């Protein structure tokens, strides 16, 4: 299901239409904000909404943001548009749920809002498609608490550059904290489901978080589990192509690659990289160092654990005996931050459910991770994942069959209760 939604969101991405006098700046900004990823459905028209999202209060459906006057935002004035994006208040005054990342979008400048408005009003084709009602139990449906939530958790509009930093860093901060809304997945959330921090001043910003059965890794300079061992060029390469020598994008990051970051200019990607690289580590870690004894043992046929034996039969072909695989196409498992993370959710999820297409600017990748849901039992997945987390110099803890069972259940593709998407 997730797979379907993602695949279609990317198809929808291709139907961005540029009119003769298209507002290129606005389109660029809409790309940077990846609006289409949430405001479209499989096979649907771009920006017509309808995507199902799970939230702590119930099921939400994203809305039509095409310029259709009745079902979309065609009757919005610039002020209405601004209020909804930067403050989370719809034209009729109702409060939006913060599945819409307006606490991040609050950072947008007025002129970018105006360009976006122009783009949505004039270049996006109007689609007549009524919004679907949210499914929220009556006792949770009043929206006034959101007003309180907003006062507490939504910053006042606009971006204040940090004068102690250069222009490139500030541009990166603006893109990451604002339109990119990277924190929606990568920053931990508090008890009111708010992102604990919305900018670089706080050390929890982009420190990694578990969402939608995935663990979105830390983007801080942690040596093993963050971006501490990545050069700025490698960070930019990852955003441009979906992979680099350390890792390949997966989960919701696939949407980002398919619709958003590869369309950014090299200088914006360099700014994002410079900004991310400046975020100090939050864990005292040592960088990964290769231990060649694992590969030696595997190649000599010394597979003394069940996990090692499974690795040889199911994984080694692509990921190789030394765990180095064939980057950029097949990600290494040796030293990969996602493998080393304390929270193994993403690793287990990928083994269970495989990966889906990355389509950087129209060209799909080859070699997707196949799913092992049917082939391997919980115990076997726990064994092989534990092996991978301890092989080649990786130093991450073992995984239990119970953890695998829980994820198998919550990501069951045929279940109605599947958490489609929480917030992004």
């Amino acid at each position: 299901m997730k797979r379907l939604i993602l695949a279609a969101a990317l198809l929808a991405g291709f139907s961005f239409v540029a009119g003769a006098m298209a507002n290129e700046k606005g389109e660029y900004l809409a790309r940077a904000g990846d609006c289409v990823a949430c405001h479209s459905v499989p096979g649907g028209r771009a920006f017509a909404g309808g995507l199902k999202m799970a939230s702590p209060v119930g099921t939400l459906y994203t809305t039509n943001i095409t310029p259709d006057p009745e079902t979309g935002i065609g009757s919005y004035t610039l002020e209405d548009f601004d209020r909804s994006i930067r403050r989370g208040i719809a034209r009729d005054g109702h409060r939006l749920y913060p599945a819409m990342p307006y606490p991040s979008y609050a950072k947008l400048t007025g002129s970018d809002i105006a360009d976006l408005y122009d783009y949505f009003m004039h270049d996006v084709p109007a689609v007549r498609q009524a919004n679907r009602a949210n499914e929220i139990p009556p006792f949770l449906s009043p929206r006034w608490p959101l007003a309180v939530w907003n006062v507490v958790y939504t910053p006042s509009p606009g971006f204040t550059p940090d004068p102690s930093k250069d222009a490139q860093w500030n541009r990166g901060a603006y893109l990451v904290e604002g339109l990119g809304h990277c924190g929606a997945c990568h920053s931990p959330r508090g008890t009111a489901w708010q992102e604990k921090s919305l900018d670089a001043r706080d050390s929890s910003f982009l420190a990694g978080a578990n969402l939608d059965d995935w663990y979105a890794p830390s983007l801080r300079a942690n040596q093993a589990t963050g971006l501490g061992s990545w050069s700025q060029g490698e960070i930019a390469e990852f955003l441009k192509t979906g992979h680099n020598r350390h890792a390949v994008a997966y989960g919701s990051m696939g949407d980002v690659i398919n619709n958003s970051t590869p369309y950014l200019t090299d200088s914006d990607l360099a700014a994002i990289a410079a900004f991310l690289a400046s975020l100090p580590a939050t864990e005292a870690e040592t960088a990964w160092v290769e231990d060649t004894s694992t590969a030696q043992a595997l190649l000599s046929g010394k597979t003394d654990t069940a996990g090692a034996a499974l690795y040889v039969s199911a994984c080694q072909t692509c990921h190789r005996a030394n765990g180095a695989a064939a980057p950029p196409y097949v990600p290494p498992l040796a030293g990969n931050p996602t493998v080393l993370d304390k929270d193994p959710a993403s690793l287990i999820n990928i083994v269970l459910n495989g990966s889906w297409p990355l389509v950087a600017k129209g060209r799909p990748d080859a070699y997707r991770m196949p799913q092992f849901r049917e082939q391997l039992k919980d115990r076997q997945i726990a064994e092989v994942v534990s092996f991978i987390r301890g092989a080649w110099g990786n130093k991450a803890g073992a995984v239990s069959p119970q953890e695998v069972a829980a994820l198998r259940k919550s990501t069951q593709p045929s279940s109605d209760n599947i958490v489609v998407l929480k917030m992004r």
Partner: protein
Amino acid sequence: MHYTIEINGAQQSVDIDGETPLLWVLRDVVDLKGTKFGCGAAQCGACTVHMDGHPIRACQTPIASVGNGRITTIEAVGESRLGKLVQEAWIELDVPQCGYCQAGQIMSATALLTRTPNPTDHDINEAMNGNLCRCATYTRIRAAIKHAAEAGRA
């Protein structure tokens, strides 16, 4: 979508969905049936072909991702010196049993010898790990690779 890709030295034009695996294009569109479908899930190696000399799994390679990559299949591998030596070694040692996996085995073995002319047992284990053989011809495959390597040195 329309794609033009190079297969065995010839340009082939196909009009097909970009997500279609190369294996389907080879077998069903350009009618090169030497490459076999085993599992369709990157698990068996029967579909191994070369892209720019590297062994790849055709069942995991969407046609749209091929781009300018030069594809070589079992039908043309014998046109290279090493490919020919491998095929001769295969015949000499009577490697195949049922034969189903063997096109993939030969493609992987040729790619290995191109990279590593004198492979050790470890090199062979590493390179051939992904090519399963239900008939368990593994010992003959290993011997034939060494045989071809020796012939290559001569």
